[in-house]
């Protein structure tokens, strides 16, 4: 009998406690609605430094990019540490939708026009849909529009073309840390010597670490597989800082590459990061975004 009483008391106690818990939290009555939470802002903009980052320009947004790579710093004070001369690339990037973007640009170096398409086929997400990484495919082409100077080879359009295919695989590991790998194939229709390969394989790695809400440190390194490119070409290594100020992102960096398009910074970097610092360039990308298509918000 005693045992029964205790049992009854315990049951009541249990019921009451569960009831009052419900009273405490009305919202829990609704349960959790699971939503898919896509990761964004893995990088401040769609470039790490030279490499494409795993971020796209947002849907309906036009990103105007002004990029400079100055003369080598080791030119010294006479050349104002390189600032007296620059390669320039002007570019327009546009987000077609949430997963695809396109862009065009023109570089002063070799008067090159480039265009690309970037498509995210996996998006890092958690919640209803779970995906640990973002993966994108980047296809670029570039055409050199310099006056043709080689009398031995006919001036055909195909001799001026370069293509790049790149897989971008990355993850935002935490609020501040993102890392990506970019296995790349650069195809050059025409190369200068027999020793240089038309197809150049490389593996890029890019990362950023946010040191405050609006400032991040970026780094990238591109490893070239051996025996593919001209003598003296080095692996591209760049370090920089991203500063975001509302509608602008300023990317300031040092790099041993002077080109801002794939075929150039991957296969034609000559600077060395040893103590001589020969051919290290200061440079910047300035990104300004314009919202062309506004999202409709009804009230």
């Amino acid at each position: 009998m005693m045992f029964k009483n205790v049992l009854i008391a315990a049951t009541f106690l249990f019921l009451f406690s569960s009831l009052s818990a419900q009273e405490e939290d009305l919202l829990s009555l609704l349960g959790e609605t699971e939503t898919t939470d896509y990761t964004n802002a893995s990088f401040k903009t769609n470039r790490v430094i030279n490499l494409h980052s795993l971020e796209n320009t947002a849907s309906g947004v036009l990103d105007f990019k002004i990029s400079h790579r100055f003369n080598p710093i080791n030119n010294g004070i006479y050349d104002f540490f390189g600032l007296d001369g620059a390669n320039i690339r002007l570019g327009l990037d546009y987000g077609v939708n949430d997963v695809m973007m396109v862009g065009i640009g023109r570089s002063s170096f070799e008067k090159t026009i480039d265009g690309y398409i970037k498509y995210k086929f996996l998006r890092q997400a958690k919640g209803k849909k779970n995906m640990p990484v973002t993966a994108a495919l980047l296809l670029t082409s570039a055409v050199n529009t310099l006056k043709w100077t080689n009398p031995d080879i006919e001036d055909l359009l195909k001799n001026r073309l370069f293509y790049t295919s790149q897989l971008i695989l990355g993850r935002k590991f935490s609020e501040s840390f993102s890392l990506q790998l970019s296995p790349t194939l650069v195809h050059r229709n025409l190369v200068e010597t027999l020793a240089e390969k038309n197809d150049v394989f490389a593996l890029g790695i890019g990362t950023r670490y946010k040191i405050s809400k609006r400032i991040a440190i970026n780094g990238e390194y591109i490893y070239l597989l051996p025996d593919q490119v001209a003598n003296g070409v080095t692996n591209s290594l760049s370090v920089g800082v991203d500063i975001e100020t509302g509608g602008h992102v300023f990317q300031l960096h040092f790099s041993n590459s002077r080109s801002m398009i794939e075929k150039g910074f991957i296969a034609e970097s000559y600077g060395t990061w040893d103590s001589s610092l020969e051919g290290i360039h200061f440079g910047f990308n300035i990104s300004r975004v314009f919202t062309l298509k506004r999202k409709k918000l009804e009230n």
Partner: protein
Amino acid sequence: MRKFIIGFFLFFLGVQVMSAQKYFTKTGHISFYSDTPLEKIEGHNKSSNCVLDVATGKLEVATLVKGFQFEKALMQEHFNENYMESDKFPKAVFKGQIDNYSKLDISKNGKVTVKVSGDLTMHGVTKKVTTDAVVSINSGKIIADANFNVLLADFNIKIPALVKDQIAKSLKIKVACTLEPLK
């Protein structure tokens, strides 16, 4: 023992009746407005949860910070990344009470203005909030509307000097919920 069993059933019946006195929505519309001469910013979230206990006047609202939609993608990114830090603080929650509550008569259509007060938690900070709300009853549904202002500084949301003219120090917040009985 028999008494106990009867009591037990009555008790459960009571719980049933009580839960029928709760009204809810999962599609509440919460919006906020920042108006400055330089820039107008507004965000909308149409999947907010709200529960009202008609028996007691207790009211709770919750919304996912990431669910706010903006006209410009960059605003949305900055809202989440720089201001609300939605990875760290995914939800904004209000838990409160209709003051001097006298039971709403759901069977009659009508409109009353009430005072609601309670705790608003967002960006990791909890603050007391008091506002007028209009509660109307229309064919068995409760429609609740409220407008109030919050100071960003109260919630530890800092505006950098560079954009201080583009973002209002005080945001206008609108809540519009149509509540249905919770079964």
